[in-house]
């Protein structure tokens, strides 16, 4: 009995997850990400730098709510950085399933994500296109 969801169970318009995923932008997390990617924007004496692509940390946490099988492929990604994230930001991310389609025998899904701050202002928006993993 698989513990993942089946592609057939993913619905257009479905909100993932039901409750937005919370993410706090801390100095430690931002620094770790900047160092991991050798971000030239991060340098000695420049505290408070937050790479916009830290979205790659908090957006997947929301996308994981689709609970697909292993072996899926990340095909395409779009991010719009509406404002630079700041240390101390608390961000909330949710996704909506916008599309499902099959191409060349592969099952695709498209999820649109929105990340907002405590005031409800948009910080990052995204569109993720993935290939569903093989099901038993």
């Amino acid at each position: 009995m698989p513990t993942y969801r089946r592609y057939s169970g993913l619905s257009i318009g479905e909100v993932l997850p039901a409750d937005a995923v919370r993410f706090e932008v801390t100095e430690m997390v931002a620094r770790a990400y900047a160092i991991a990617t050798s971000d030239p924007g991060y340098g000695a004496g420049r505290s408070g730098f937050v790479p916009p692509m830290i979205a790659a940390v908090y957006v997947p946490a929301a996308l994981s709510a689709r609970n697909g099988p292993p072996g899926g492929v990340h095909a395409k990604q779009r991010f719009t950085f509406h404002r630079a994230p700041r240390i101390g930001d608390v961000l909330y991310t949710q996704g909506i399933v916008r599309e499902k389609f099959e191409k060349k025998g592969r099952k695709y899904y498209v999820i649109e994500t929105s990340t907002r701050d405590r005031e409800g202002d948009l910080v990052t928006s995204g569109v993720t296109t993935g290939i569903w993993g093989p099901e038993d």
Partner: protein
Amino acid sequence: MASNLAAGYALPGITRVIDQETIDVYAAASGDFNPLHVDPDYARATPFGNTILHGYFTMALAAQVMELWRPEDWRNGGTLEVNFLGPVSPGDRLELSATVDEVVETPKRSAVCRITGRVGDRVVLAGTGICPIPGR
């Protein structure tokens, strides 16, 4: 700096030589410990035959190319859309480059750049970076 908005202008690129440590450090910073990235024994049994770099890492380098060019404009309105076309594995020399395609005036004045990620002659990432250009 009007000249660096001309069609064909090549933004300064970024090159990284990828090793397993790079991948492991990114996994820790992003929270993505998919065995395909961090477990060589697991990865060897997959069609990839080796561990692969997170797609978001390559995307982060693409974002860095754009941010290095116009830091504040990019961080407050930039859009990056990429297709992940091929794997990047330990030992690969990953090169990210971008070229201004055009400056558009609607919906707001923006530079549209074509972005490419390569390992040798193999294209692993292709996409578009759209950077707002504040009023004249």
